């Protein structure tokens, strides 16, 4: 009897923990107007990609191949890639064209807002597994292998890969704003 009670107690605890974890993941989802971001990028995509002199290599290729990335790793990968773009790519790129600079500023400030949202997640819900760390390290290594200006241009040109990945992995399943008391 005591063994059965203990077993049920452990099972219930595990269920509660897993439920809490899934709920916590939702707290680490970002809610951004992706249509505006994608529109901003589309306006400058052709110009940026035309400036890319190394057409045969990619920097964000691991994102395309990591179809099986676990939901628990989404927060960590997103946070690391946002930092990659804000700390390196946007700073390393010197854009003379004011129109393009305006669109890059829009994307950069949107990324900053996303990063602030993720920082509000508790650390335990945004833990970095070895797989997530490896994925972002590969991207960093790819970037460092190229000359800095070329790497920045290429990374900017591959923003559509990152935006598509965010769109796919951060779709909200509930609309908290719509749950209004009658």
């Amino acid at each position, binding site marked *: 009897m005591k063994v059965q009670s203990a077993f049920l107690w452990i099972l219930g605890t595990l269920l509660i923990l897993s439920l809490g974890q899934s709920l916590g993941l939702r707290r680490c989802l970002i809610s951004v107007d992706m249509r*505006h971001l994608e529109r901003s990028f589309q306006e400058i995509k052709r110009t940026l990609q035309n400036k890319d002199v190394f057409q045969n290599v990619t920097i964000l290729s691991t994102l395309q191949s990591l179809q099986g990335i676990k939901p628990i790793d989404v927060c960590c990968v997103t946070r690391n890639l946002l930092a990659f773009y*804000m700390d390196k790519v946007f700073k390393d790129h010197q854009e003379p064209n004011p129109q393009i600079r305006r669109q890059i*500023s829009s994307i*950069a400030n*949107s990324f900053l*807002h996303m990063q602030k949202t993720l920082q509000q997640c508790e650390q335990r819900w945004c833990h970095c597994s070895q797989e997530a760390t490896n994925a972002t390290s590969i991207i960093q290594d790819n970037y460092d292998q190229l000359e800095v200006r070329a790497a920045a241009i290429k990374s900017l040109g591959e923003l559509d890969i990152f935006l598509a990945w965010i769109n796919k992995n951060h779709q909200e399943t509930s609309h908290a*704003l719509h749950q209004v008391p*009658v």
Partner: protein
Amino acid sequence: MVLEGTWASLFTWVFCTLIPCSLTDPGAVVPAPQNLSVHSANMKHLLVWSPVILPGETVHYWVEYQGEYESLYMSHMWIPSSWCSPTPGPECDVTDDITATVPYRLRVRATSGPRASAWSALKPPFNRNSTLLLPPRMAVRKDGSHLVIELEDLGPQFEFFVTFWRKAPGAKEHAKVVSSVGFPVYLGAMEPGAVYCVKARALVRAIARRSAFSQAQCVEVQGEALPLGLALFAFVAFMLFLVALPVSIWKAGQLLRYSCCPMAILPDTLKITNPSQKPAPCRGEEKVDVCVMTDRDAPRRGLRHAELADLGEGP
């Protein structure tokens, strides 16, 4: 001599001090714009400031912005505003510049020809999540038995949360999220004879905020009296049709018969005035049982065979 030099110096000092130097110095400074503020409602942001007045001169204004990213990572970078580089009036629509939900620094300076003022900065920086969200304007109507709503177009960042209910005790409230505007949205079918009410609020996901609900608007659906009357009228008309149809057919038949095959008028010689009088027996061939009048002897047209047989009877 010394006194004359002193007077000259004093005169020069008075001249340069009391008379405004702008009249003589072409590189004089233009005053910087003052009282910068942002008026923001429904995600439309307008930067305004006090105008700079220079008599006889045309003043233009230049607006620049810097998002929080630029403030943190590249503080030297300011971006010219999309629509206000330059602008003639003391206001600037910065909606297309403020595109992220972070604090934005804004600054303005005035120019007159080659001369420019110092930059005036907006304090504190503006974040678009402070915009005033107003209850949306809507038009509610009925299309047949359907409840229809039309919402104002506030741009792609807006969605609308619409609730509607039947005005009756204990009635359940229904909800619908409307993303696209510009054309009517069908909410649902209405029961005849009932009153339905609708209200809506605006949602902006980019700033995770929503407006207050609009005032409820109600529409009334007509009851069943009219359809019942129509049904009764249709029944009576159908019954009349059922009666009138055979009568009409009979009458038409009558008309056709008399117009196509009119009855011939019997001559007086053939009329039997005395009922006891019988027609004379025929002479001639006795084998002939019935005396049939030929065309030569009697008008055959219109005479029925019964009449001809009667005339042939006799001893």
